[in-house]
């Protein structure tokens, strides 16, 4: 099987999320993985591509979902809600079934991992769930609000209060409004391990790309995370 073909893209759901599926692995067991959020999403694009390429070598299809209103998926930020994000995950899972893909795992990277856990908690019989280098929604929100700390003397609480009162705050080019902050606040990480949910973290010491302003290639990290993901899949990888 060739693995250098890159992604094919599918719009799924309403509001639509964008699924990027590894073109040469469409018949392989599918890992539906939710992309990171905001600035981290752009920094992780190369990593996501490399993870999918590495999974394809294991006979697995690493599909990435851009949630509505993030990355390349259209939706005005005022329309972002937790329900719409969870509906987008549902639509993507359903798309896998109707498109004849064998869904083997649902997971996510950074905030995407928190959304995957939130989705799993609503399912009667969730598939295997992988939370890769997870960050909770409130932490992701705090990091975005910190872009305003050094400049205007306001506290995080002041900024949140302004947003709750209807103000939209620009966080380094990303508009934060009540809809976005309410959504992020809902995706917490469970403190206790949950059945069927595996947390994946790399032990590599290099700074990961989501902490790099101009991220460098992180091939070793991609291989490490893909290996840990692949280990969660049991069964023959024939495709």
């Amino acid at each position, binding site marked *: 099987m060739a693995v250098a073909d890159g992604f094919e893209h599918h719009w799924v759901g309403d509001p639509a999320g964008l699924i990027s599926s590894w073109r040469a692995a469409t018949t392989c067991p599918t890992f539906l993985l939710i992309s990171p959020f905001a600035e981290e999403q752009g920094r992780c694009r190369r990593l996501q591509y490399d993870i999918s390429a590495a999974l394809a070598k294991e006979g697995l299809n690493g599909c990435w979902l851009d949630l509505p209103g993030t990355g390349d998926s259209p939706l005005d930020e005022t329309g972002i809600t937790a329900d719409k994000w969870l509906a987008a995950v549902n639509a993507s899972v359903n798309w896998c079934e109707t498109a004849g893909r064998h869904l083997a795992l649902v997971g996510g990277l950074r905030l995407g991992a928190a959304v995957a856990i939130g989705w799993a908690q609503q399912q009667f019989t969730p598939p295997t769930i992988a939370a890769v280098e997870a960050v909770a929604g409130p932490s992701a929100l705090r990091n975005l609000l910190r872009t305003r700390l*050094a400049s205007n003397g306001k506290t995080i609480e002041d900024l949140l209060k302004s947003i709750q009162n209807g103000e939209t705050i620009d966080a380094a080019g990303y508009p934060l409004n009540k809809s976005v902050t309410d959504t992020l606040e809902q995706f917490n990480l469970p403190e206790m391990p949950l059945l069927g949910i595996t947390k994946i973290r790399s032990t590599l010491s290099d*700074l990961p790309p989501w902490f790099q302003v101009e991220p460098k290639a992180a091939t070793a990290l991609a291989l490490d995370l893909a290996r840990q993901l692949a280990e969660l899949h049991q069964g023959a990888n024939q495709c």
Partner: protein
Amino acid sequence: VTENLLNQVRLLLGDVLGLGARAGALTAQTALLGSLPELDSMAVATILAALEERFGIVLDDSQISADVFQTLGSLTTFVQGQLADMSAAAE
């Protein structure tokens, strides 16, 4: 501040900002905010998040101001204070 901690913060700063060999020339007196073109508001937030991850601490946002990012030394002093607060709280 200890030389070891200063070096760790220097390395992290270099990695986050992609300073390459320039990171080695940073001293405790090197001006950061307003002097390093790479250090914009998003970079500041990223450095704070990376510091939390690297040192396993939760930074007190109420103590973060532009003064913290004045020099490499002031940033390291801030980290040292946060580490001290954390170990005091653990005792």
